[in-house]
Every structure is written in structure tokens, then in C-alpha cells.
């Protein structure tokens, strides 16, 4: 019985391994497949002031509720030197709902103003320990993770957000202030690893 309990505990631990705050951005040269048709890496996307990586997809209701904020955040922070990319790691669905063709349509319909790329083999998601969409990772100019988790505290309505976690983190990062909190959580759709 004790052995079984230990195995179950280990399984839980393994599934919960997420990139720690302070970690260096992993897999920076992993070739992603952008909807523009170009190969792209995180190194290509990096900004002078930092980098925002958003694990996302086409169909998750939480993505659909939140993605208006992808666009407004890109509008505001890319000009301030923060590189941004949304990554689709649902490799199990690349021949279906998360195909490049569907991603192109989705990006067009939702006015995406940032790269949107497939993560072959879900390797980036695995390296980050990303489990869901949307799942946010913010790195500073030295490629160290400074914030991870949620965009804000209200997926349903941008006008009813009490705490804009990610915007607060980016503002603090840009002004050299302490980021607090450095980690938050929100509900989301599981990433469909292949």
C-alpha cells in the first residue's frame, strides 16, 4: 500500500514540474512553425526589454474569453521592447482544430498583432512545464523568468478585472520595481501533448 501511495505521489509530482521563477528561458532555439510560414525560435522573438510567451490554442473557451487582452497587451508592450509570441502546443490536434490553416483563420478573426506558432512535438510546453491554455511566462531582458501564470483575474470580462497580474508584472519589470506576485493561477484547457 505504501509503495502504491509513493508511486501516486511521484506521478503527481512529475506532472506538476513547472519552470521555476529565476530559470533561464529554455529551448530558445527550438524551431516553431509560425502562421506566416516561417520557422521561428524564441531567440527570434526576444525583445530588448523582455519576452512574453503565451501558451494558447484556437478553441479553448478560456483563451477565447481572454484573447482580447492578448491584442491590447501586444499593442501596449511590444512598442516598449517586450517581445511577444503565442505558442500552440496542442500537437495532438495539429491535424484538426489546431492546424496551421485553422490558426491562420483564428489569428485573422481575432486581430492577432503578434506571432502565433505551432510547437512541434509540444517540446516547448514540456520544457516550460506548461499545462494549460492560456498559460503565461514573462522573461526579463536577461531571459530569466520573472512572472508566470494568469493574465488577470477575470477571463470573462476585461472591464471587470480587479488585478491585471500580467500588466502589473510587465510595468514593474520595465520600471525596475519588484514584481508581486511572481506567480498566479487560473483555470484553463489542458495542453494536448502528442
Amino acid at each position, binding site marked *: 500500500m505504501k509503495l502504491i501511495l509513493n508511486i501516486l505521489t511521484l506521478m503527481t509530482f512529475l506532472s506538476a514540474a513547472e519552470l521555476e521563477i529565476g530559470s533561464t528561458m529554455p529551448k530558445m532555439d527550438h524551431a516553431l512553425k509560425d502562421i506566416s510560414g516561417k520557422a521561428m525560435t524564441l531567440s527570434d522573438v526576444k525583445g530588448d526589454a523582455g519576452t512574453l510567451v503565451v501558451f494558447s490554442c484556437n478553441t479553448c473557451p478560456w483563451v477565447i474569453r481572454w484573447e482580447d487582452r492578448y491584442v491590447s497587451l501586444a499593442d501596449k508592450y511590444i512598442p516598449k521592447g517586450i517581445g511577444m509570441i503565442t505558442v500552440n502546443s496542442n500537437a495532438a490536434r495539429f491535424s484538426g482544430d489546431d492546424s496551421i490553416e485553422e490558426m491562420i483563420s483564428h489569428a485573422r478573426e481575432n486581430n492577432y498583432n503578434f506571432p502565433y506558432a505551432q510547437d512541434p512535438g509540444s517540446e516547448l510546453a514540456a520544457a516550460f512545464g506548461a499545462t494549460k491554455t492560456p498559460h503565461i511566462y514573462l522573461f526579463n531582458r536577461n531571459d530569466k523568468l520573472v512572472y508566470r501564470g494568469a493574465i488577470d483575474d*477575470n477571463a470573462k470580462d476585461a472591464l471587470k478585472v480587479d488585478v491585471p497580474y500580467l500588466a502589473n508584472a510587465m510595468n514593474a519589470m520595465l520600471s525596475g520595481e519588484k514584481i508581486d506576485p511572481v506567480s498566479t493561477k487560473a*483555470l484553463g484547457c489542458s495542453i494536448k501533448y502528442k
Partner: protein
Amino acid sequence: MKHVFLLIYILMITTACESVELIPAASSDLMSQVRSHKGKKAVLLNVWALWCVPCVEEFPMIVDLDKEMSELEVIFISADFDDQLEEVKSFLNRQGVDHISYIKQEKDEPFIQGIYPQWSGSLPFTVVYSRESGTIVDSWEGKESESRFRMAINIALNS
């Protein structure tokens, strides 16, 4: 007239089937529910959503386990948005959930932390609590096999 009686009959049947009570709940309410079964039943808590395909896929299996095991209490918590109450109730009724069920009424961060701090927020999410001690014997994110559910429940019933 015959059609009127038929319509009334269908309405009566439909009304009779609408038996689930869907209660808005915060994590603290749910943890109180879990604790109330300590020493009496093992508890399986499952957080799901209508939009979550793997949640909906494993749902009937969990309902069957609930009906099969009298010493197991299954607590379903819908994480759907509050503008979907009717759809959630309709789904629960179709699945044969004929008792109280819950829908999240709390912001994500305190809800996740209150249910289980190690949970990343990905759905579905399942936690299994020991019958005797009320402590967690297993938890997992994502859809799982019936054998994984049965293994965890078996441990919960005997610990």
C-alpha cells in the same frame, strides 16, 4: 385534445427529470463538504467544465463509479461561467446526476489555492480523499483511465 395531453405528459416527464440542484460554491464550501464525510465515506472531487472535452468524456464513468460504490461520495464542481447555469444543469440531468452538484463561484486564484495549491488550474482535475483520515490519497490533472480512478478510490476506502 390528444396532443394537449401528450404535451402535458412530456412536460411532466421533463420536469421530473430536472432533479439536480446546482449550488454556486467557493472552495471553502467545497472543503467543508469534503470534511463532512471524514470517517464515513471516501470522497472524489472532480472539477470539470462543459467546454472541456476530456472532462465530458470521463464524466459518465465517474457517475457510474458513484452509483456503484455506496461508500464513495462524488463531488462534481463545474468551472463553467455563470452565464451557463442552464446548460450545466441540463448536462448534469442528462448524465443522471440526481443530487446536489456545484458550480464555481470564486475567482480562479483563490479557488485553485483553496482546492489544492499544487493544482496548476488545468481541467479536468480530480482529488481523492481517504475515508478514515480525510487526507488526500491521490490527485491528477487531465482525463484518466477507469483503472486509475479505481486504484485511487480503493486506497481511499482502505486508508
